[in-house]
């Protein structure tokens, strides 16, 4: 919340990818507020539980409203906020365990509704706050504290899943590319519908993937992350499908469909346009 709150006793570890994500989000919010001329109180940041969820307390610029809620439930909470007041800019901050593990059931329904919020997913491939258990995006066979003989399930492919589920804006980036990230988050917030910015945000303590993602010429390691070629058309579902099916971590906006109405718009056009009967007449309908 404020830069120095002595009572707040949580810290990210040195080198944590979430520091970069914070700067990216602060930049995106600054731009969004400037462009839309909205006060910061018009934004609500809904956080899950985990290292990533602490983002809501770590923002140092103008303060938005926040909810630090329940592990896995940031999406349905955000639905209540957004449908309670569709004029709000609602941003979910969550980790891979929160979003893709315990909370996975909530992604598809919001995609089908096209809930007009932005989810920022910090993917470090590990449960950091509980000290290093395997997560949905941990690779098959990896030894962690909860998989002492190697992880037995295949890793989840979040980008493929988002596309299949019908998420209408999908961006993928990495925590050290702050400027790109800010721009992508801004575009996601401006997108009319359900947008996800999926960020590789390495955990230096339990799953340091910086080198694997960025590669090392010295060590002869090919980078996993690569920029999506400039000619990619995000409005083309087949092109998007090709990107998410390819190996490696694509960086850039993968998919953007602006043709679907948002959830709040649909509600406004259907039940919202009906005239509600007065309570008196609703009651009188049961008169004997």
């Amino acid at each position, binding site marked *: 919340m404020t830069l120095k*709150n002595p009572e707040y006793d949580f810290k990210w570890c040195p080198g944590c990818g979430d520091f970069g994500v914070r700067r990216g989000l602060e930049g995106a919010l600054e731009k969004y507020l400037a462009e839309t001329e909205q006060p910061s109180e018009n934004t609500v940041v809904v956080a899950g539980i985990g290292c990533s969820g602490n983002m809501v307390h770590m923002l140092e610029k103008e303060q938005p*409203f926040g909810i630090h809620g329940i592990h896995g439930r940031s999406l*349905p909470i955000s639905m209540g906020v957004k449908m309670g007041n569709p004029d709000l800019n609602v941003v979910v901050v969550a980790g891979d365990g929160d979003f893709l593990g315990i909370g996975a059931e909530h992604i598809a329904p919001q995609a089908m509704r096209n809930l007009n919020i932005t989810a920022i997913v910090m993917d470090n491939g590990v449960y950091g706050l509980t000290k290093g258990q395997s997560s949905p995006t941990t690779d098959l066979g990896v030894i962690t504290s909860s998989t002492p003989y190697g992880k037995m399930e295949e890793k989840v492919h979040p980008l493929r899943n988002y596309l299949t589920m019908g998420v209408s804006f999908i961006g993928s980036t990495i925590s050290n590319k702050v400027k790109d990230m800010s721009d992508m988050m801004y575009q996601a917030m401006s997108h009319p519908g359900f947008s996800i910015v999926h960020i590789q945000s390495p955990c230096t303590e339990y799953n340091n993937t910086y080198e694997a993602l960025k590669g090392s010429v010295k060590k002869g390691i090919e980078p996993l992350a690569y920029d999506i070629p400039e000619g990619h058309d995000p409005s083309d579902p087949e092109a998007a499908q090709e990107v998410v099916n390819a190996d490696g971590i694509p960086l850039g906006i993968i998919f953007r469909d602006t043709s679907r109405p948002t959830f709040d718009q649909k509600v406004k056009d259907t039940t919202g346009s009906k005239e509600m009967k007065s309570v008196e007449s609703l009651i*009188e309908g049961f008169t004997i």
Partner: protein
Amino acid sequence: MDVPCFLDNGHEEETLKKQDFVVRFAGEGGQGVVTSAEGLAQAMAQSGYHVQTFSTFPSQIRGGPTWTQTRISTETVLSPGDELDVLVAFNEYAYENHKDDVASDGVIVYNQGEFDIEDTDNALGMDFDELAKQTGNNRAANFVVMGALAQLVGLPLRVLEEFNRERYTRGRPSDQQIIDSNNMALSLGSAEGDKSGFVLGEIAEAVKPEGEQILVNGNIAISLGATAAGLEIFVGYPISPATPILLWMEQNLVGEGKFVYQSTSEIESITSIVGAGFAGKKAMTSTAGPGFSLMGEGLGLAWMAEIPLVVVNVQRGGPSTGLPTKTEQSDLLTALYPGHGDIKLPVIAPGTVEECFYAGIMAINWAERYQGPVVLLSEHAMSERRQNIPLPDVSKVEVENRKTYEGSNGYLRYDGFELSPMPIPGGSGAYIANGSEHDAMGDTTHLPARHIQMTERRFSKLDLLNDGTFESENASANVALVPWGGSKGPALAAYNKLIDDGMDLGWYYSMYVHPMPKEMLDALKKKDLVIVPELNYMGQFASVLRSEGIKAVAITQYTGLPFKVGELATRVKDLVSNSVAEGVSA
């Protein structure tokens, strides 16, 4: 707000004419069992009688054994009725299963087109469908049955003819044809009744209740009450027996700024109304046992982050899937303590259909006032029960809204040990609504002083809910009968009976289970014995009262069905005499 009570009614008076009839319709789902019972209730209510229906049916879409009971009285109906004056059996299975509930002077009306009864002399057989066919309207079987019933209970046919005319005057070309065939069905049924020679007595003429009446069930009454209190957002997941509340909301809570939605789970229901409550809206969900179990964590968040919302739990029977279509009062403890950690939620448990309306209002008001979650605890038996109640005067409803923060930014939302105004997103005073223990601005902290402050703050807010009303009768008695929730009706009928028998017994009742009116608590603490009739195994309310230092003993029943008045009165009497033997002065 005054919630009317029925203490002045219910005393049965000896007159030549009968005050009260109980009719049960039993058969197969789809045979018109429910429509017959509800049609009879509607017709009798229109004529000024007091009515109450009671249903139980299997958890399947079509078919299966089902029954609905209608009680007709010249006075407010307190219970479904212990014994049947008339059993209408649509098939043999229904006859076999319900014949033992028929009073010794009762009559069985059965569908001779389906089966025959030879082993009793109090059965009136007629071919429902064949008689209906004679009217030219195959769907008039219900009216054939009602005609026979009218004859048996001495009800003038014109009462039913009037109901028929009103019900089927719908501005359609076929209206007159249907009305004529139904009237003919009434006459045919009545003639059959007459031929049988059975007479159950003559029902006394109805004394029309003062003021206008409505005929609703508990689920609708709750929905109307919450709407009257300004409900704006409702998210729910289908579950018996709470689904009708969701459907009512989908149909009626519409317009700008309203949002009603069927969620993908009860977890989504509760967490989304947490979000809506945080955004400044009056939000509610409804569910039953299994869904309520899933809501525990979300209710904890609302308690911790101080967010107003209402959860309606329409109780059904048993743990797990249990008895989805039967009644029980076994969710009291989980309603009070739905989650981990130090938490005790406000619980309002209406005891009558009429109270359901006021409970809907007060649940929303309480949530707004103390800025936290409120549980409205209803029951299956009440949710399906249709009853005539006085038309509520909406102009007298007091609607409360939360105190909101209007100052500048930099506000300490969770400062102090008591309730403070709540900032609303979009307005000033941004803060973090935090389910982790937090400091005054909502940031996570582990400082002991903060946990002490916030825990005490959360519990102190319950003191704001001190306006619950209660009923008391014969307050000087050392022994009191103290029911809760839907057992109120049968308990009150049993109480009236015991008082008539000369027992010195006190009566206390409040739908405000927590926080309970202080004056009532103090009075109960002085009693030698407090008897709590309740539909569960553990004696949940009695244990809550004991934790307050009250000498409470439960009379329990866990059949999936409501108490029978006669049985309950006997058990109260036995419990009192046993206690007297053990030294209680009654």
